[in-house]
């Protein structure tokens, strides 16, 4: 029986879909059979982050409304043949899928996949209920900004109300700012939200460079963010991977920044 994980955040734009794409590829790279389900109906993005935007025929809405079975809607990844995307509709809205339909679908798909990752829409409305209902546990993605941490706390309350285990990923950490005391670090966010953390992802310009090309950053194993996501995947697979301190720039690199701008 596969494990179902929902990736959520509350606030939009903190890297939910980017995280879902990288974790999916990372699990596939370890030989797991993985399905990614985009539940952000009307604002789908997982397809473009995976480079699969031109291969979509049927969507989650077609599957939920029983027009096709899920196998017909799955899109196989170009490079990792054990990774599949179940895209959602770009024209329907979030009311097109009932939470109960989603739960049934996920429970069927469990028999075929090792991992099912559900990319949740921002907000706390019906889309959230639909995304969360079938999951075994939840990843809450946040960034070190007061607005995102506050929204994460709201989502955590909703998840705890439906008895989901929760693990935290802090995305877009700027090691220089943390060192200077001008940004919340993982420890202080842990303290505020009282949750175990399974990832701290450094802010890395290469994330955008990779996503421009439909490549999740984890495929670029020499990047800081790619390495950090790879550690998260290891922790999801039950490996004991310690958190490494970030490499911060030395004096001369900072000198370059000061005079480079």
């Amino acid at each position: 029986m596969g494990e179902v994980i929902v990736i959520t955040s509350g606030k939009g734009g903190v890297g939910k879909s980017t995280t879902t794409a990288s974790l999916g590829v990372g699990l596939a790279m370890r030989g797991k059979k993985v399905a990614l389900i985009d539940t952000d109906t009307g604002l789908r993005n997982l397809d473009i982050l995976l480079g699969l935007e031109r291969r979509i025929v049927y969507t989650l809405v077609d599957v939920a409304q029983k027009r096709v079975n899920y196998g017909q809607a799955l899109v196989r990844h170009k490079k990792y043949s054990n990774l599949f995307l179940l895209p959602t509709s770009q024209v329907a809205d979030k009311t097109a899928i009932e939470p109960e339909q989603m739960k049934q679908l996920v429970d069927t798909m469990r028999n075929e996949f090792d991992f099912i990752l559900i990319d949740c829409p921002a907000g706390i409305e019906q889309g959230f209920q639909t995304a969360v209902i079938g999951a075994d546990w939840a990843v809450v993605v946040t960034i070190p900004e007061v607005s995102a941490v506050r929204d994460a706390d709201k989502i955590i309350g909703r998840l705890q109300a439906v008895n989901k285990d929760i693990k935290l990923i802090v995305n877009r950490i700027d090691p220089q700012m943390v060192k200077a005391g001008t940004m919340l670090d993982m420890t202080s966010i842990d303290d505020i939200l009282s949750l175990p953390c399974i990832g701290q992802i450094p802010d890395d310009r290469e994330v955008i460079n990779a996503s421009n090309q439909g490549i999740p950053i984890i495929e670029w194993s020499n990047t800081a963010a790619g390495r950090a996501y790879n550690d998260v995947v290891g922790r999801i697979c039950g490996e004991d991977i310690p958190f490494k301190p970030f490499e911060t720039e030395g004096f001369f690199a900072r000198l370059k920044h000061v005079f480079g701008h």
Partner: protein
Amino acid sequence: MSIWDKLFGSSNNRSSKQIAHDRLKVVLIHDRANVSPDVMEHIKNDIIEVISHYMDIDKNAMEIALENDADSVALVANIPVNNMRHDAGVRRR
């Protein structure tokens, strides 16, 4: 931020990280209390039960609320006492 701060790190006493941490701690206590008014009702009923062992209180006039100033939150209870019980103090030994 000055060039000096960029090169050698900021020298402020209370970092903005610390300020963010403290502000979030306070605001989340309020957010969490607001999403669960039934929790406040449970707290109120539990307090009534405990106090009633010792005093005769006006349950209907009782008020509890979270109040905050800049950097702390307090649970403030206003409990009118009608009478003191004769057996107060021996009840719960």
